[in-house]
């Protein structure tokens, strides 16, 4: 048997090895404020990005007995994951430190989760995809319980674990059916064998789709999202709400879009139902939330509805649109959680919408950042959220599903209401009595400002990123 071509999987090998190195280094050279682990982690991600672009951007090759594929789609997904994870690390550091939770494990778990997502992004076999999914999920369960003394944290982790295991089981069950039908784990072989008339594949599709949409958080598989967002430490919620969405999208693209292309007529209907439900439930439930983290949770659900709209078109353009939507939404959501982190301090989590009162008077930079982020989530032009919605609508209309586009935009108006409520608290209301000055390191502020600026600049010059997302499918 010939040796597999390891060079194609260089980014995975690098991240896996560095995660182990950081685990050990953290024991022996903790450094002040875990500086060693922190900077090593960022270094790992930066080098991984370079390796990915260098080895996989122009590649289209299989290795490891065709279980692993190196291609442009994988490269785009992975680089997005690195960037979002790096944001999560930077935002987390001060928060964890002030609550005596700053341990090297946070970064190690984060890197292993990244590795899981990388494996998912490059999966060319049912097995590879599943391994990646499990690696990601296990890291997430532990991260949610990272504050082990918090009752809410433990409860959220338990809930997430039980529901997540169920979803993993469903994926595995679906995979077993697909394997039974195709006689192979190889996704190319599956794609050749799968046809829309074979009930075995349709059943397999249903179960795999449940698992994927669970990870994304589509209704009715969204129950974990608000509780996990509320219960988990804010930086963990930030992480879970951003990069793993890209991972889940990778799973869809590899398993369903590429693996079961002929079943498009089936999954289009399923996704249409899930998308409409997500838009309705996510938006309507978000309206009544007073907890900002829960509100963001339900708002995620509604955005997942939009992502599914892009996916159900079943075209390269539609998937490119969904990819663009997911990446930019994750970038925006990271900023929203960062504002919560900025407002909170030890013993005060600032997770109520009311805690944002008077932000404009207290810290105008953070208020303007929040303004851009909220308007981006609303989909107001000038921010990137508008183009995300536009490309998705374009794909949906192109597929002849104008009525879905109309439902999408109408619920975007419902969404506008609660985002405006957040801005109302931040801009139009007076700060609470005796509110202390906001403390945050200069680097935190700089990154938050950069994050908001990215939302604005991508909203003015979205062309390059859109082109990249579409090129990923070329």
């Amino acid at each position: 048997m010939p040796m597999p071509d390891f060079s194609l999987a260089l980014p995975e090998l690098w991240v896996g090895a560095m995660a182990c190195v950081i685990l050990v280094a953290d024991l022996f050279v903790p450094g002040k404020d875990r500086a060693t682990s922190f900077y090593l982690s960022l270094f790992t991600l930066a080098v991984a990005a370079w390796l990915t672009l260098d080895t996989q951007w122009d590649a289209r090759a299989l290795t490891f007995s065709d279980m692993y594929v190196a291609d442009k789609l994988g490269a785009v997904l992975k680089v997005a994951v690195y960037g979002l994870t790096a944001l999560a690390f930077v935002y987390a550091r001060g928060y964890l430190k002030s609550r005596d939770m700053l341990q090297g494990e946070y970064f190690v778990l984060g890197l292993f989760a990244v590795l899981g997502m990388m494996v998912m992004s490059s999966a060319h076999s049912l097995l590879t995809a599943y391994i990646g999914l499990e690696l990601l999920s296990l890291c997430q369960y532990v991260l949610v319980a990272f504050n082990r003394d918090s009752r809410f944290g433990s409860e959220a982790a338990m809930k997430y674990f039980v529901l997540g295991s169920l979803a993993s089981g469903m994926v595995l069950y679906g995979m077993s059916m697909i394997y039974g039908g195709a006689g192979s784990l190889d996704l190319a072989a599956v794609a050749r064998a799968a046809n829309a008339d074979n009930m075995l594949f349709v059943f397999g599709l249903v179960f795999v789709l449940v698992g994927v949409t669970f990870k994304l958080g589509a209704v009715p598989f969204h129950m974990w999202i608000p509780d996990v967002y509320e219960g988990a430490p804010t930086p963990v919620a930030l992480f879970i709400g951003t990069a793993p969405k890209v991972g889940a999208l990778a799973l869809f693209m590899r398993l369903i879009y590429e693996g079961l292309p002929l079943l498009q007529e089936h999954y289009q209907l399923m996704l249409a139902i899930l998308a409409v439900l997500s838009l309705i439930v996510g938006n309507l439930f978000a309206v009544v939330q007073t907890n900002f983290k829960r509100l963001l949770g339900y708002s995620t659900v509604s955005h997942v509805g939009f992502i599914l709209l892009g996916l159900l078109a079943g075209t390269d353009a539609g998937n490119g649109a969904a990819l663009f939507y997911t990446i930019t939404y994750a970038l925006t959501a990271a900023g929203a959680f960062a504002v919560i982190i900025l407002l909170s301090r030890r013993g005060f989590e600032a997770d109520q919408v009311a805690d944002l009162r008077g932000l404009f008077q207290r810290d105008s930079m953070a208020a303007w950042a929040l303004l851009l982020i909220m308007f981006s989530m609303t989909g107001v032009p000038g921010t990137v959220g508008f183009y995300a919605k536009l490309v998705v609508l374009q794909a949906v209309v192109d597929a002849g599903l104008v009525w879905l586009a109309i439902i999408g935009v109408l619920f975007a108006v419902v969404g506008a209401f609660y985002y405006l409520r957040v801005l109302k608290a931040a801009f139009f209301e007076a700060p609470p009595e005796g509110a202390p000055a906001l403390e945050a390191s200069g680097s935190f502020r700089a990154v938050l400002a950069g994050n908001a600026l990215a939302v604005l600049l991508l909203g003015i010059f979205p062309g390059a990123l859109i082109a990249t997302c579409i090129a990923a499918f070329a």
Partner: protein
Amino acid sequence: MFEGWPLLSLLVWLPIAGGLVLLAIGDRAPGAVRGLALATAVLTFLLSLPLWTQFQPAGGMQFVESVDWIPSFGVKYALGVDGIAMPLIILTTFCMILVVLAGWEVIQTKPAAYFASFLIMEGIMVGVFAALDAILFYVFWEAMLVPMFLIIGIWGGPNRIYATIKFFLYTFLGSVLMLVALVYLYNQAGSFAIADFYGLGLPHQTQVLIFLAFLAAFAVKVPMWPVHTWLPDAHVEAPTGGSVILAAIMLKIGAYGFLRFSLPITPEASMSLDWLLIAMSLIAVVYIGLVALVQQDMKKLIAYSSIAHMGFVTLGFFMIFRILVNSDSGALLAMQGGMVQMVSHGFVSAAMFLCVGVLYDRVHSRQIADYGGVINTMPKFAAFFVLFAMANAGLPGTSGFVGEFMVILAALKANFWYAVLAASTLIFGAAYTLWMVKRVVFGEVGNKHVAELQDLSGREFFILLVLALAVLGLGLYPAPLVEVMEPTLQQLLQVVTAGRAG
């Protein structure tokens, strides 16, 4: 000397850049902020003048700039003006100077953010009028909501939060449907250039749906009855500058949308649904005129009068099909009347809101009942106020008369009863405006607040004087404005009739 300058881009981005600089300066130096805001507004106005002087009425789209913006979706950054857009752009840059002056000493909380919001808004509004690409248009159209949301919400009156959220949601709901329509049109035309949407020959059913989507966007913005209810709330709560911009410019953007999108893109649907638009316009003229009559709040009264006046604009635009059935001439007159009415209403409503602002700054009340006999303490102010009230009522010699008269004249060619109903505004408009003036300005000094009033300061006098000249100038000699627009409107009429026949 402006050959080859990207004038329109300058008009869009100069105020926005100025606004960002103001935000960066912050409230450390309010004096510098005001000066810089005024300098930016004046410079923008001066730069907009070449649009007028070098404009070729018969030259189609001019000052065109076009750059690829999002190549994968065929979206271009394309700007240009024709006879419809150019006067509105100059109206915008002109009004902005007055707004900056009006907020000069009045705005004490966060002045930098206040002036920055207005300047950014100015750039965006110029962008709306100049955009030749549908997505670019939509971007500016929606982005406009953001500064206005903040202006009303931060610097507005007691009930400002309700008003601003209502304003945002109403207009946002109206415009998202337009976005779907634009995306659909892109699929049909293969490009986002607005001109490519003309003459697509879409089936009637499709045209009706697209027309309704546009109607949702533009009718809310104009606003037409029955989707006008956000306007009185927004006007009453907005600071004076916000009201001026709302009335003078933002309402025009809705009417502009009808001319740029609804009529030429969906001519068949416009014709088959013109009864709806005519009915909505006439109801606005008559019913809203009656509603204005019973208002106790001056700003609310002017807000309702704005709705009634905008009814004239939409009546002029959508009457053309009825006129074309009867005669060939007259349709152009109706559209010209609508356009003149738009510009005139820009001046008059701005002036009315500024007058109310002058009173509000002194007494902090907008209730008519809190005034009386203002002429005894503020004779200069009273003179201006009476002049603008006359213009609002449509007195010959003022700009208010020209547009209304043209529309009524054209209405006679469509249907006698349209003309009768439209002409009723001359009665109602005079009734509610002059009755308000009588109660506020004339009579004995009403109370001790009025007795202590100071007459206009030099700044206020200057603002109102400029507007008075504009109102009288347009009223006595409207020919330049009409001539500038005529070829463009003629061409538009051809597109509409060609689409209607085919």
